[in-house]
């Protein structure tokens, strides 16, 4: 699950020390047991037992740490879009899923169909 562009990932270990994605992946790739898939579609590694956290920006401007179980490196990248949602500007892949309010209901849309003025389920407004 990597809707955010790889370049924007902030990964740390459980002590908060920054983990460089490229070096980390190359190191783990040698451990056969962790390689869930390594084929013409891409690479998927299991890291759930390593105490790795991904830091995501939230509305307040702070970062939220979420545990990471898998790291995927697809070989066929989708287009990257820049979106300003609330106060945050994000680079997201065009197929990243957002949940927006639609009257009294919620619906899922891809990032490529996200338009200025839409409001996410979290209450944040899409500006551009």
């Amino acid at each position, binding site marked *: 699950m990597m809707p955010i562009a790889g370049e924007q990932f902030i990964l740390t270990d459980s002590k908060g020390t920054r983990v460089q994605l490229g070096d980390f992946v190359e190191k783990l790739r040698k451990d056969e047991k962790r390689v*869930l*898939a390594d084929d013409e*579609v891409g690479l*998927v590694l299991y890291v759930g037992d390593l105490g790795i956290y991904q830091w995501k920006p939230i509305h307040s401007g702070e970062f939220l740490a979420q545990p990471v179980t*898998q790291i995927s490196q697809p*070989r066929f990248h*989708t287009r990257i879009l820049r979106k300003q949602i609330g106060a945050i500007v994000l680079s997201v892949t065009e197929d990243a*899923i957002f949940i927006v309010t639609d009257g009294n209901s919620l619906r899922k849309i891809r990032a490529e169909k996200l338009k200025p003025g839409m409001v996410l389920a979290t209450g944040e407004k899409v500006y551009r």
Partner: protein
Amino acid sequence: MSFKNQLEKQCYEIAKNTLGDNVRVEHNKKIQIERALCPEVVSFTGPPTKEIDILMCRLIDKPRIILLTSCKQLSNKAEPAHIQEWGAVVQTMNKYGDGALYLGLVISPSGFTNGCEAWATSHNLGLIPPLKGKALVFSEQAILHMYSRVLFALHKRLQYTHIDLMSPPAFYDFVYALVADFEGREEAANEERYFLAPKEWLSSFSEMYATVAGHIIEDAIAVEGATVIKLDTGIQIRFSGNRVDYGQAECLEEGAKVEPSCFKNIEMEPCKFEFIKSIIIGKRISSAGDFGTYLEYGLDQHYNFGLHINGFHVVSTKNPVEANKL
């Protein structure tokens, strides 16, 4: 062993290859759940008639975790009712499983209608192919590749832990993460132009460029029907008209060597192969373009170097053009 449809047979063979003998198929069967004290029978037949065909794969033994796969070979997209039905089967099996844990997967090559995702996430069922925003039809080969990928990954993943996958929508998400990237691959498959050596994996222009950018040209050769350049660290690029192969593989220079046709400047004036080599060797790739009938690389931001099916060209990109002719 009989199979309900061709898809089920193919999935069975894939599961057999991945998991060995821990795979079986059951059709319209009263499923007897083994319990030490009171054997219970759970039937999925009878009014209203439900024909449940199951492909069962035992993934690990301690604890016993079994994947129940439903192979839907339908003329239209699968509907929420199909997902609900499979959710009920997996739920029932988990209820009477006597310690065994069951995960559910639905394969429908014709795809799924929009309402299926909500049911799949709440029942924690994996869906193949992925339900995505684009109206993309996956080839049968891609569907089977997805199934194979999920089985292999799941088998390895369960060696670590299983608890987190049992709660919705973790298993749905796990399967989605493994099959979602096929979308980009399918788009590249429509072109079938770039291939990564030595495994001949389907590739794309962007991946090719990411692999060769910044590398230094060490040699160029022409063989029958193709031109080849060799880069540092063993990377080679072979251009043969409608196909571009690249990667770390010596086999890319295979073929009888021939004398290439060589040209220079925008006017494409004939020149010697040695002249071309004297310019390109030692230069670093700084850009690339695919023009269909030829592939062109920018070198050190000063030259454009083209690979044609039967030769090469080189052009200076310095301005003014007239003053910088080669």
